[in-house]
């Protein structure tokens, strides 16, 4: 086999390898879902962020409109300060509220945005005022037990 033949075969091999890498990046991983367009950052404070993680999706009406880019504890209020990047193409009213929701019973947590009715829209760097914390199962169970105990006390 001449040099040309070997080079062709090696070319086929390298091409297969590159196709495999592209397949892994696009079909198996989430490269395609990264929005490459411009974004703007907003923040929100939550009393409890639960299991929210960096890179968790930000959704509105179930549609992903951005990602969480930073989570930090606010040293003054002891609240969790969540920074998120939203697609520049989507503008939300200034009185939009944010909730930490869970996809399914055991799924990952994400931020749900519910638009308000204000005429002004959220600018880069602005903060969402109305927030609802993550539901912490232990707190729920504790509350439930407490209520049951209180009911039981009433009956006697």
């Amino acid at each position, binding site marked *: 086999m001449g040099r040309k033949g070997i080079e062709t075969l090696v070319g086929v091999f390298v091409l297969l*390898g590159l196709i495999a*890498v592209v397949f892994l990046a696009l*079909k198996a991983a989430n490269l395609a879902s990264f929005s490459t367009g411009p974004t703007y950052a907003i923040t929100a404070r939550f009393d409890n962020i639960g299991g929210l993680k960096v890179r968790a999706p930000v959704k509105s009406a179930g549609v992903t409109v951005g990602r969480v880019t930073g989570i930090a504890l606010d040293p003054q209020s002891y609240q969790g300060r969540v920074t998120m990047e939203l697609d520049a193409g989507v503008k939300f009213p200034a009185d939009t509220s944010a909730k930490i929701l869970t996809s399914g019973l055991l799924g990952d947590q994400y931020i749900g945005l519910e638009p308000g009715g204000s005429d002004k829209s959220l600018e880069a760097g602005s903060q969402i005022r109305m927030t609802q914390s993550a539901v912490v199962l232990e707190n729920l169970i504790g509350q439930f037990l407490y209520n049951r105990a209180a009911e039981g006390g009433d009956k006697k």
Partner: protein
Amino acid sequence: MTASDALPALGRRALDLLQRLGHSAFFFLDLLRNAPAALRRFYLVIAQVHAIGNYSLVIIAASGLAVGFVLALQGYYTLSRYGAAESLGLLVALSLVRELGPVVTGLLFAGRAGTSLTAEIGLMKAGEQLAAMEMMAVDPKSRVLAPRFVAGAISMPLLAAIFSAVGILGGYVVGVLMIGIDPGAFWSQMQSGVDVWDDVGNGIIKSVVFGVACTFIALYQGYEAEATPEGVSQATTRTVVISSLAVLGLDFVLTALMFSTPR
């Protein structure tokens, strides 16, 4: 043997070991130094990629397919108990991209390509071809060893990527076509859970490291083989044993560095 004999023997072994380690380290540096020269004569590298990569393609693809099949079957068995069978795609993809792709490819690479490199170099040495090259003022390290080293480092990540991709397709065949998981859930769970840089990227870094390590070990064993039939056969065996252990050990270290901190 008295204590006065045992102590020097122990010291001698330790010094021997150190000497061999240092020797192999200098050999590695030599290979690295000669790699740019090999890249300048790229047709040598291409011939070696053909010998190392192309001929390993079939066994890598077949193993990847088999591993994907089995992963999907076993994963479904466990996941369906928890009603999470839809996550099968995620399980198969993460296992392959993070661990099984690089590691199994590394083991197969050591067995398929590493042994042939060791035997080839060992026989060249036994036939005094390397000595003849030196006589002609051709450095065998830059003419013979470096192209093979570069070719191994190039081939291995490509083979690992092919392994993972074929394995995921195998998981798709078993999970979606045979078991009947929803194809949309299969892919979307996978895409939401597999990260391009953290998972795919680190997997590729792993496979590059394994490729460099396996090729280096194979070349070193071949180059240092005793120039007899038994010497070459022993060197070939050592290549497989040391490469496999190196892949597994390095994999633990790399995994600990890359994936031990959940975010």
